[in-house]
């Protein structure tokens, strides 16, 4: 039953990804923000636009373009003709209109950065958010609770961009405890690597940590009122175990849901944070491609983000049936 | 006249062992009985013998794995929509676990009025009064109508459950251990209430209980369950006086009694 469920869901994933492709394609095809004009720049003639459109394959009918794209993903495809012919092996996402790079290579190159940002931030916000929420719930009504929850509200009212710049100003420029973030690989210099990622992690984690802290608090308070918490206490368990096992578990179900979604969405790139800190991740690629109307890259980012989100949702649902034994798997 | 008839009701639970092994467990096995209009059918039996599961099935809260259910001559095994609504209007349930069956976020008043609201009965104005009246009937302080379930004692919560079932004048009330948490004097009041309602309004009861003395007081007929089956079913007098089944006999023999000597001494004192 489990296996069937998973297979069914994965089939659903494929369908959704296809629909996302189709919808995105239709959207950009019908909207016609002509990328050729963007590339052509000034002193542009209609012939040159036409020529560029031809080179980019934009003059072909919708279906040809769409099938070409899909075909590229599954079977690879050829671009250009004669001496200019290049083969793009499957899975082929095409070439960037702007830079002519293979989009697949671009994605592969950037994904680790985004993943590093996402994972680090996720660890941070889970730890901080849940711990703060738990503590607030236990100390409900005390000054700690009020301060923490006030901060959490404030934290979620600050845009990432402001937070990023302010943090950079304070930590790097004024206090000089951190260097300006640099693109350093972990293997080259772990210390600088860590220092460089620290601010992005903090910035990205703040908003989520605030949300998670408030959610954890609210749910733990609800759970603490349950009779089974009294039982747990009557058993003389350590407070840590009582909290972790008995109070947190029920509170975590909604958190597991949003965590799956948030984290998956982040793998698709953290636009603002990556931009501010000059991290060469998927989010920045998305921002650049939107600004330059680079359709193959937009398609790739969309598909990538969609892939993670949909898979994330499948995982969330699976985890859910584990988290609460009363919930049964419903087969599609 | 037969109000409710169950035939061959069966319930199988599928559970999973530690190694993912599928285990099937038949909790209720080919149970059949009928409840007549205005009578009380008591169900007694071993703990875990399937009484609550049977109750859930006849209340249409759980789909049976097999068997049929008839209500007022109509097959309701797969009733939906209007037929189900009609069934619900006539059959109410008192649950075994008092706190779990009360919405922790609702005030008692709201809980008590829920059946009326859900079935679109009674004008809005009189509902609050009605709630208070119900609370009084089961011996609760009507001033507490705005409290939440957690603020009551076990027995009080159980009475809220009973009051809720009585809110809509049902034809059949399924009482699953409805008086187990009540002290004898309140229990007596509640039982008296149930009996009066039966006399005056012709209620029928399926009365699940462990306290055989209570059963004796209230039941017209008794069904004895063991290991998912009905092992004995007959008029109360007959079952108590002359039990046919071995299990029934064990059961009756195990009933604790107060030292008759103490009883006698007390009677003499007063």
């Amino acid at each position, binding site marked *: 039953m489990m296996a069937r469920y998973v297979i069914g869901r994965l089939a659903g994933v494929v369908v959704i990804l296809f629909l996302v492709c189709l919808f995105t394609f239709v959207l950009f095809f019908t909207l016609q923000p002509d990328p050729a004009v963007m590339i052509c720049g000034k002193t542009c*003639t209609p012939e040159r636009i036409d020529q560029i459109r031809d080179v980019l394959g934009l003059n072909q009918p919708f279906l040809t373009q769409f099938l070409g794209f899909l075909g590229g993903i599954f079977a690879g495809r050829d671009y250009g003709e004669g001496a200019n012919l290049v083969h793009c092996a499957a899975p082929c996402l095409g070439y960037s209109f702007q830079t002519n790079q293979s989009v697949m290579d671009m994605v592969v190159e950037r994904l680790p950065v985004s993943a590093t940002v996402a994972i680090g931030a996720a660890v941070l916000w889970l730890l901080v958010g849940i711990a703060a929420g738990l503590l607030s719930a236990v100390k409900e009504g005390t000054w700690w609770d009020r301060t923490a929850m006030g901060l959490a509200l404030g934290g979620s009212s600050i845009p990432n961009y402001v937070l990023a710049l302010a943090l950079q100003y304070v930590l790097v420029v004024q206090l000089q405890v951190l260097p300006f973030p640099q*693109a350093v690989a972990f293997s080259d210099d772990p210390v600088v690597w860590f220092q460089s990622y620290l601010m992005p992690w903090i910035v990205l984690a703040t908003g989520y940590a605030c949300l998670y802290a408030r959610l954890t608090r609210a749910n733990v308070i609800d759970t603490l009122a349950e009779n089974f918490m009294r039982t747990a206490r009557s058993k003389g368990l350590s407070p840590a175990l009582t909290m972790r096992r008995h109070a947190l578990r029920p509170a975590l179900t909604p958190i597991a849901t949003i965590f799956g979604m948030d984290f998956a969405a982040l793998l698709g790139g953290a636009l603002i944070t990556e931009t501010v800190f*000059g991290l060469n991740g998927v989010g920045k690629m998305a921002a650049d491609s939107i600004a330059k109307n680079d359709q193959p890259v937009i398609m790739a980012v969309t598909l990538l983000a969609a892939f993670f989100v949909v898979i994330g949702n499948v995982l969330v649902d699976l985890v859910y049936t584990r988290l609460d034994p009363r919930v049964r798997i419903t087969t599609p | 006249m037969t109000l409710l008839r169950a035939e061959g009701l069966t319930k199988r639970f599928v559970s999973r062992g530690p190694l993912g092994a599928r285990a099937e467990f038949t909790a209720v096995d080919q149970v059949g009985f009928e409840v007549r209009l205005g009578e009380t059918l008591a169900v007694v039996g071993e703990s875990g013998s399937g009484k609550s599961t049977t109750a859930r099935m006849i209340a249409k809260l759980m789909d049976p794995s097999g068997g049929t259910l008839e209500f007022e001559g109509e097959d309701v095994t797969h009733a939906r929509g209007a037929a189900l609504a009609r069934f619900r209007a006539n059959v109410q349930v008192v649950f075994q676990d008092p706190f779990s069956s009360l919405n922790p976020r609702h005030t008692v008043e709201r809980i008590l009025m829920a059946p009326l609201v859900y079935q679109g009965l009674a004008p809005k104005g009189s509902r609050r009064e009605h709630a208070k009246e119900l609370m009084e009937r089961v011996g609760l302080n009507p001033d507490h109508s705005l409290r939440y379930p957690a603020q009551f004692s076990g027995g009080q919560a159980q009475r809220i459950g009973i009051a809720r079932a009585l809110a809509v004048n049902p034809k059949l009330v399924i009482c699953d251990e409805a008086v187990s948490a009540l002290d004898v004097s309140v229990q007596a009041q509640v039982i008296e209430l149930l009996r009066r309602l039966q006399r005056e309004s012709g209620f029928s009861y399926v009365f699940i209980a462990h306290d055989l003395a209570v059963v004796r007081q209230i039941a017209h007929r008794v069904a004895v369950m063991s290991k998912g089956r009905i092992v004995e079913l007959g008029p109360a007098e007959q079952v108590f006086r002359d039990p046919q089944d071995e299990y029934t006999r064990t059961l009756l023999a195990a009933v604790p009694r107060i030292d008759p000597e103490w009883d006698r001494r007390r009677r003499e004192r007063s």
Partner: protein
Amino acid sequence: GGGGTAPGPGTGTGAAGSSAAPATGGTVRVLAISDFSHLDPVRGFDGGVNNFYRLIYRGLTTFGAGPGAEGTKIVPDLATDTGTPSSDAKTWTFTLKDNLFFEDGTPITSEAVKFGFSRAFDPEAGIGSPYGKLLLDAPKDYKGPYLSGDLDTIETPDDKTVVIHLKKPYADFPSALALANFTPFPKGTGAGAAFDTKPIASGPYKVASYQRNASLKLVRNPQWKQETDQVRTAKPDAFEWTFGLDAATIDERLLAGQGTDADALGPSIQAATVARVQTPQIKARTLSGLNGCTTYMGLNTTKKPLNDVRVRQAINYAIDKDTIVAAMGGSLLAQKGTSIQPPTVAGRVDYDPYPHNVEQAKKLLAEAGLSGGFSLTLDGRAQPKMAAVSVAVQEALKQVGIDVKINNIDASTYYEVIGTPAKQSDMAVTGWCPDWASGATFLPPLFDGRNITAKGNSNLAQLNDKAINAKIDEIAAMTDVEQANAAYGELDKQIMELAPVVPLAYEKLILVNGANIAGAYQSNSYSGGVDLVTVGLAKPTK
């Protein structure tokens, strides 16, 4: 040869940073918001990338190296002089210097020049500057060397001599040759997108490593000989670009100047940072000057009531350029626009035909019978600075009873919308930069009525005035470049009488250089950026 006249006010203020002359060695670092569009010179074409191309590529001619007018002068580069035109300026002959090599050791010959020039015709690669295809004579269906073979219209009588035939007479050809479109390459190289990641250098540096959108490192090209080059001093041993930085972060790093940031150059700082560069220490390493472009508002002359010249003039009078300058970041980041051509353009006449005058504007509108007010739609780019300009225009026109509706357009589609007459609204704010400092690449593209196209149109006013068209032809036929430039100055006036546009401002740059940067000045040929071929470090660390 070409040349420029005196620089306008506010142009490059001379060297900043360390007052010492640049020493040899070290690495100059450049902090950049975005990567170069292309490393292949026939593909890339914008101020920033052209400045960079000069480090790795050489052409027949190039711009002079120096502040002010020096930077717009055309000087020989690979060629011994700026070329010998035929009497009708249709055929040009160049002779190459001796001792010229590509980074791989191949000599730079006339064949390489021909091959490099012909690449502009490749349908896939030739998307950069259009001058190759516009000017060079070629068979009608010629599709570049990879698809159609050699371009036979360029003659190579010997290894050192190149004879170039043009489609039509073009006196300013040496200026056009300074563009990277005309870069020689060893024959047969650069097919596909090869040069976009690993180009073949002819200049003093070559690409050592390149990570798209992340970093680019240039190191010395040992095949380049200083004695063959009068322009480039090439003091540093290396250049290193870091791409993809946030504008605010760059500002912060340049101001702080910590560690290697002392050796860094960057883009113009943001308006919000201007107040912070006023301390003497930072001011000492700041450069400020025009970027050589004009920000203007096109008035769509095909739409009512903008088809009435009085209305357009009224709008010119009504706009308060001070608020425009404020919106663009204040006096350090912009200068009031008066004429169409910016002060850096040769032959430009400094005059102000429409000083801010609300009364005059109202009077003109009354004459046009529009004193009751009317409304216009302004296409604006959805980007903070441009949005601020739009609002400033809106506020100014409110004073004369014109209700401006702002049509905010996403930056990525903005140029498509305003460049398509069918989609264009009444007015649009945009900018124009000349390809070299002459009216030839400024006024004809914007005001030649015959250039109006259904797509990619740059004549936003859709002005099609016979007298002006005729004048454009007349100037194009002049063989004396200086005379032509002066004529463009007069044409500027003539056009502004019709008021098809409102020159809003001339944009300025504020560059904060690292404390160790020496010999930096703004080049008027490269959008006011620091001239990279002469900049260096005062005290190279390594």
